[in-house]
């Protein structure tokens, strides 16, 4: 069965620093991959998604992610974080033909310190 692993439950960075949130997936083929963000007391919002083509995808708020088939990874990156980026970030995958049924990772809580 497919799975998504986010190995870091919590990440703390200083404002202005660069960021990488890690995501590894387990699936024999290439799935559709997503990063969502959840701000306090809100639902999830899509940051970016990948399903084919250029392995580096651009998202909202200057986030980007790089797909690596050899490493089964889809890491999220940002060159310079802002305090407002503090939130929980979820990596997710969807299999082809699975009626948009997303499998989510456990999430990474990001804290940006001033």
């Amino acid at each position, binding site marked *: 069965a497919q799975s998504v692993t986010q190995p870091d439950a919590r990440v703390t960075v200083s404002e202005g620093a660069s960021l990488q949130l890690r995501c590894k997936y387990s699936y024999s083929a290439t799935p*559709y991959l997503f990063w969502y963000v959840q701000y306090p007391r*809100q*639902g999830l919002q899509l940051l970016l*998604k990948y*399903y084919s083509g250029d392995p580096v995808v651009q998202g909202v708020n200057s986030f980007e992610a790089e797909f690596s088939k050899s490493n089964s990874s889809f890491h999220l990156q940002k060159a310079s974080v802002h305090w407002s980026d503090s939130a929980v970030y979820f990596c997710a995958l969807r299999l082809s033909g699975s*009626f*948009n049924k997303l499998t*989510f990772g*456990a*999430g990474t809580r990001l804290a940006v310190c001033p």
Partner: protein
Amino acid sequence: ETAVFQTPNYHVTQVGNEVSFNCKQTLGHDTMYWYKQDSKKLLKIMFSYNNKQLIVNETVPRRFSPQSSDKAHLNLRIKSVEPEDSAVYLCASSSLGGSAETLYFGSGTRLTVL
């Protein structure tokens, strides 16, 4: 405003009571979902409806039942709540077509079972 709306935001009840949560989307989507998010932020899909038809029904206790009157509404009823039902219930919607459709989430209903 086009979005996914959930009511109530919070609900506190006692073991054995029946509760019902409402979800409405004004995005014109044909598919709606219920996800459960536990206290550790883990997200699991419960149900998915496409044009009022159930298409995904994960293994959830029988006391949970989705109700869809039209493709813009998907409610969730819990017949006799138990302590482990305490969680945030997130409603989402999307279009079913396409290869990597975005899910749009509501802000959730937080259920506390005493």
